[in-house]
């Protein structure tokens, strides 16, 4: 798509939407939001950038292969279950650090899990979108 306005705007919007997605991710513990929604919003940001600037630009600004991001996210979620296994509690028991961090709120394994979900959803959604886009370009 050749729109100067959209291309220019998408650069600023990318940052804004990504920040919003992190906000969604962090407020998710007690309010609507969370890793899944945050990941979808972030994927939407990159999808917008791709619509405005094309596939190669979107890939290069993402820096990491989407599938790899998904795998790393899943691995992170998996790692978040390790503390419960090590400390002898039942599998996936939530463990919290007593003193929360000012801007983030309560910190613990569920947050780690949510961050993992964020990257998983971001990666998978972009994998699907990019794969469909490549198909379109070739035809």
């Amino acid at each position, binding site marked *: 798509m050749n729109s100067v306005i959209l291309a220019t705007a998408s650069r600023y919007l990318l940052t804004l939407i990504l920040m919003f997605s992190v906000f969604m991710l962090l407020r998710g513990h007690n309010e609507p939001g969370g890793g899944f929604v945050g990941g979808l919003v972030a994927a939407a940001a990159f999808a917008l950038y791709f619509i405005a600037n094309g596939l190669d630009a979107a890939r290069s600004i993402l820096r990491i292969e989407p*599938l790899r991001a998904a795998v790393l996210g*899943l*691995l992170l979620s*998996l790692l978040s279950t390790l503390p419960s*296994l090590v400390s002898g*509690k*039942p599998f996936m*028991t*939530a463990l919290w650090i007593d003193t929360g961090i000012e801007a983030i709120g309560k910190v613990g394994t569920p947050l780690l899990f949510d961050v993992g979900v964020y990257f998983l959803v971001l990666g998978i959604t972009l994998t699907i979108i990019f794969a469909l886009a490549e198909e379109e370009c070739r035809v």
Partner: protein
Amino acid sequence: MNRLIILPVLVPLTTALIMLLLPRRIAVHRLLGVLSTLLLSVVSVILLNSVLSGGILSLQAGGWAAPFGITMVVDTFSCIMLAMASLIGLTTAIYSIGSVDEKQEHNFYHPLIQLLLMGINGAFLTGDIFNLYVWFEVMLISSFVLLVLEGKPEQFEGAIKYVTLNLLSSAIFLAAVGILYGMAGTLNMADLAMRLPMLEHRELLSVAAVLFLITFGIKAAVFPLFFWLPASYHTPHVAVSAIFAGLLTKVGVYAIIRFFTTIFTLESTPFIHHILLWVSAFTMVTGVLGAVAQYDLRKLLSFHIISQIGYMIFAIAIQSPLAIAGGLLFIVHNIAAKTNLFYLSGIIRLLSGSWNLRQIGGLYATYPLLGLLFLVPALALAGIPPLSGFWAKLTVIQAGLEAQQWLAVSVALMVSILTLYSMIKIWNEAFLKDNPLSGDEGQRGREYHGLSAGKKTALIAPAIILAMFTIVSGLWFEPFFILAKGASLELLDAGIYSKAVTGGIP
């Protein structure tokens, strides 16, 4: 010990993730595939051991108490299924090294197999109905991708049928889950087993039971719902066919056993077992008749899967301890024998260049040992003593006689003869008769002889392992029978299960 319960799910998942992080290292994929399934086998043996000595194990994920959180439960039945799944996983991992070509391996063949195993193991472990749905979907989505991995037209065509019917079954599953939750207010299997008998408004109970029966009936490929199976199982790569044939339908059978012994008992929904009896007879007959008509090797074997499912359903329909024990033995025997037949069909295809029995012949003259290897699972499937299939069939039929189901028993015996007939047909056509394509002798077996010695070993070894299993479990039948009997008593007494889950919080 309780923490081990999660391992059958975590091991394949971690392996798949490591494989996905190293997408170009095919050698690592192969090695990890074998190592992970080896570890799974060890874990399932340890679990079986501890369940036999210490009773049913359960794990409450996140430490949330039983009816509220998600529960993982291991009883003897789950242990047997886990052990069989890891055996098939291990042999398939070895067989894939020899048979799957590199293009597919680069398309994430090995991680997909691991994810498939994760879904299957999860379904065997879970104690929560909605969680079972989730594991079914994990299993299905990996199987969808494995089915079309080579991208051949007939694979797409088979996949359309497979995917559509399985999605339909998922939608029915969801509806049944909704109805059951609306009635009982819980989805924990142990909690349901206690609550259903004293439910006040039970009008919808039979609706939910029938919906569950249809869902699992589609997955298990029973009589009126099996059409996706022969339409799709002969299309994917033979290693994929083999693991599907061994495990996927058995997950459906597992769910039927779990639901219609522990949750919906003979007292609460008696008509279900009546339906099951008719379904089993029709499944046996239609499956074997379909097989008799086929000349395509893998289609013939696919129809046999359906016919053998009938015996398992028959065992569930009778519901006596002996019958359930027979059903379990039949599942164990069938998983090993059926998968082995698919492995061997792949080797036959490589040797002769065709799946069509009319174009194969004379293999016994050139490869007599392969012929003998083929006879082991084939005769076991037909129920010839002293192989494992004989004892399994004997137990089921004896239970049928005790329950005085003369008609169904005679059907089962007739089907047995037809099974023998179609196995002999393969033997005659592929091994005994003269080679129909004698003109171009040079073409034959070229594909097989072009393989390296390592690949040849990887093709033959799994078949030998499974054949040994069939022979050993036939000759030393007693420990298997005792195990199955224990598992069936445990299944039929829902109290043990419920107590272990809801009272066994660590």
